[in-house]
């Protein structure tokens, strides 16, 4: 490990200092993910493929691959990401366009989000999160001083954001769009642009959100059915009511690991977007508190790291960490909100926990970068002493 890291980082050596307060919570979440996917996918896999271990095998593979990629991103200096963020983003945008091409993009459950690359299904909307945050951090760090008085440099960011949004909504992947918008607004807010610009942008975002929602009956029905799922429990509200029943069955301490009834085909595909509902059924409110607490702690650690870098005037690192923190926070919130009926149904995974190889890979690469920055911070503190 040490020799490898010194080889990879001939200039910035000694980067083996892993911040356990970030790594262990993430590892805990990944472990729960393996357990919950095992528990929730068995019946469904048996029903669909007559092979109960179908998703467990795949998920285990993705976990191993993700940890490997986390290792590499941990050993990649941050300036490399900064340097290549724009080409990386352009590459992802091109792929996002390719997803939409008929015959190439793979459609599932009414959304065209995937392309097949050597047998591996690539979900570009997950990868674009990483490249977009890196690009925004890089761009704002470069133009920060100008932006404080002049909003003009914001125009390219918005052009790119609108292009990405347009492509995402065509898929459709409304959830990723909302998530990217939320992350962008958070970074802009912290970047220090004038409040009136910020308010105008926020207003624009809210208006366009509503226009989008109104424009599609499919989205509208999802939004309305979540408000009163029980009136449509046999049609559009089916999945949500089944998820809510899972929560209700859980009560304080849950029905016990593996004892969920709702995963027995009542709640279809529980291992992807509704793994939290099954978790809540099997571990109860007590388990939910521990899980939410773990996410809060992890995100708090990332944001406090961001705070450190911003104060150190390393704006790229600061904005990037802020973006990753708010992205995790937003995505976790949306997934848990959807599961518990607080938010309309969206196809967003739960970071580190859900099945879905792309989400896990991207989350782990980001985490590798966060760990790298945490390690850098410790070193600079030691140097400072």
């Amino acid at each position, binding site marked *: 490990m040490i020799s490898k890291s010194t080889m990879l980082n001939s200039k910035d050596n000694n980067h083996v200092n892993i911040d356990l307060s970030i790594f262990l919570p993430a590892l805990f979440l990944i472990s729960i993910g393996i357990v919950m996917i095992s528990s929730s996918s068995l019946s469904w896999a048996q029903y669909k493929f007559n092979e109960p271990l179908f998703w467990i095998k795949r998920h285990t593979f993705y976990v191993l691959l993700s940890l490997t990629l986390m290792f590499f991103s941990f050993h990649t200096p941050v300036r490399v990401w900064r340097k290549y963020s724009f080409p990386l983003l352009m590459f992802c945008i091109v792929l996002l366009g390719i997803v939409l091409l008929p015959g190439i993009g793979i459609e599932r459950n009414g959304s065209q989000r995937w392309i097949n690359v050597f047998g591996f299904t690539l979900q570009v909307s997950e990868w674009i999160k990483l490249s977009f945050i890196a690009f925004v951090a890089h761009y704002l760090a470069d133009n920060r001083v100008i932006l404080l008085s002049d909003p003009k440099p914001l125009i390219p960011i918005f052009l790119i954001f609108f292009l990405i949004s347009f492509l995402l909504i065509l898929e459709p992947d409304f959830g990723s769009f909302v998530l990217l918008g939320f992350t962008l607004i958070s970074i802009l807010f912290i970047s220090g642009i004038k409040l009136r610009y910020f308010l105008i942008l926020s207003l624009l975002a809210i208006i366009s959100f509503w226009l989008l929602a109104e424009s599609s009956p499919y989205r509208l029905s999802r939004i309305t059915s979540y408000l009163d799922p029980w009136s449509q429990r046999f049609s559009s509200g089916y999945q949500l009511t089944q998820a809510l029943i899972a929560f209700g069955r859980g*009560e304080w301490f849950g029905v016990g690991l593996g004892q969920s*009834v709702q995963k027995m085909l009542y709640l279809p595909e529980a291992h992807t977007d509704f793994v939290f509902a099954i978790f809540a059924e099997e571990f109860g409110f007590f388990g939910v508190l521990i899980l939410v607490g773990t996410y809060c702690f992890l995100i708090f650690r990332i944001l406090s790291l961001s705070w450190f870098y911003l104060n150190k005037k390393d704006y790229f690192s*600061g904005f990037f960490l802020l973006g990753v923190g708010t992205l995790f926070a937003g995505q976790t919130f949306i997934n848990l909100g959807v599961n518990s009926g607080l938010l309309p149904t969206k196809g967003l995974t739960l970071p580190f926990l859900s099945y879905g190889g792309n989400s896990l890979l991207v989350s782990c690469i980001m985490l590798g970068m966060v760990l790298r920055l945490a390690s850098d911070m410790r070193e600079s503190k030691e140097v400072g002493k």
Partner: protein
Amino acid sequence: MAANKAKRTSAPGWRYILLSLVLVSLPISIIVKVAYLQILPNHEFGVDFLKHQGEIRSVRNIEIPAPRGAILDRYGKPLAISTPVIDIVGNPQKIKSADYRRLSKALNISEKELQDRLTLYKEKSFIYLARHLSDADAEAILDLEVEGLYRETQYKRYYPAGEVTAQLIGITDYQDAGQEGLELAFNAWLKGERGTRKVVQDVKSRVINNLSLVKPSKPGNDLELSIDLRIQYAAYTELKKAVKQHKAQGGSIVILDVLTGEILAMANQPSFNPNNRESLNQMALRNRAITDLIEPGSTVKPFTMLAALESGQYQLESLIDTSPGYLKVEYKTFVDPVNYGELDLRGVLSKSSQVGTTKIALNLDAHEMRDVFSRVGFGEYLGSGFPGESMGMLPSYRDWHPVTQATFAFGYGLSASPLQLARAYGVLANNGLKKDIKLLLDEGETNVSRVFSSDLSKTVNNMLESVVSESGTGKNAMIPHYRVAGKTATLHKVKAGGGYDENKYVSAFAGFSPASNPRVVTVVIIDEPSEGKYFGGLVAAPIFSKVTERALQLLRISPDKQSSSWVNHENLEEQGKSS
């Protein structure tokens, strides 16, 4: 300006705090929402509501099938048993038309037939697609994973003795309830009580978890019959052979145990295979031995003799002049086949003389004669509990016409089932004691009543024994090594429009053996023998002989007749020992 700018380049703390507040509100809102779903009571769509909704969807009370009790013979040999089988049921609303081809192939019916059935019942949510399958066959169909198919455990009735006991045991209907025979009569005793258990099911109605036993299932009780299956087999085999040989319409054999009043065998022809009802003939369902009435004819003559002896007007040695072989009573003439001349009572009985019987009967008090018939159980309910049991008819008149009285004396104008006839002969066999008929084992105390003096009975039995002799009409009923007492009968069948059919007969024989110490009563009835022979002594008596001999052997009854060959054999043995 420079200072200001320098201040603004550092991270704006209040914005960071504001963003943090926004972010903190997210998990809090989640926790509050989840708390409503999981732990806070009395919320409209809260935990109680959700748990209830979950139970509505997944908790079911399902039935536990209970097997029907077995029907056994006196030695515990099974006559009717229940074996678990699988029914495949389908929900026509859930079976997709794309699956029709696969499903019809597995069910071994044409695709069109399946489609027609599913269309016909498309409003229903439950139809039987295949019934009474073995576990392996059922799983082969369920393995297709066709939507809307389920399995149900049922019990199929199986009758090991098949047609041999078919009418006696009866059959059950498609819901495992008694439909005919003892299955119907003792349905309440035999039927199992289905239990209920509470389970959790998945969407496919498969049981995931047993919650509790609501009501345990109770298997039905076994029914032990007095029937001896070995004797039943012998009786049935001989009956079937005879019915075929004489091209008869049908027939019955009843065998009683004299000591206990138990029915040892009750066989009928025509019969059916209760295990395969596709070719079920309604006529074959009747347990003729209990349900069908015949006019007993000459078989009642011993009871007429009893009445004569009891009246004191006649003794065994009393001579009756039957010449010239016919006797005109009012408008009717009674004829003997030949002029028998003077006959004593034994002769009247063994020749079965109409003239002699008529002369005796007309000297007797009609009411007293009827009373004798009544005492041996004619016209009296049997109490077997068997469905469709016939009481028979024993008419009573204020004024008896001489013709009515005379015909009554030789068994016309009254009717009885073969079982009633057997019971009446049982009274003779028991030397005047009447015992209740029993079809079940261990039915408790046998009801015994004396209806005749032992001496009178013995006298009549002695007369009956001479019927079954080389010179009597019943000589074909003789059994090697055993003495037999009995009586033949050849009856005209009643025509559909009234009156008697001159060409249609019923051949009968009733008797018991060993005559010195009777153990079994056997009644043989052959309906419409049409292969030339029709006399009871020629058709029914040989069957009696074979069946009764077999029964005596099976019961290990000691022989009471020393036939010459038997003595010789024993002598030879003794010689062998001594030499």
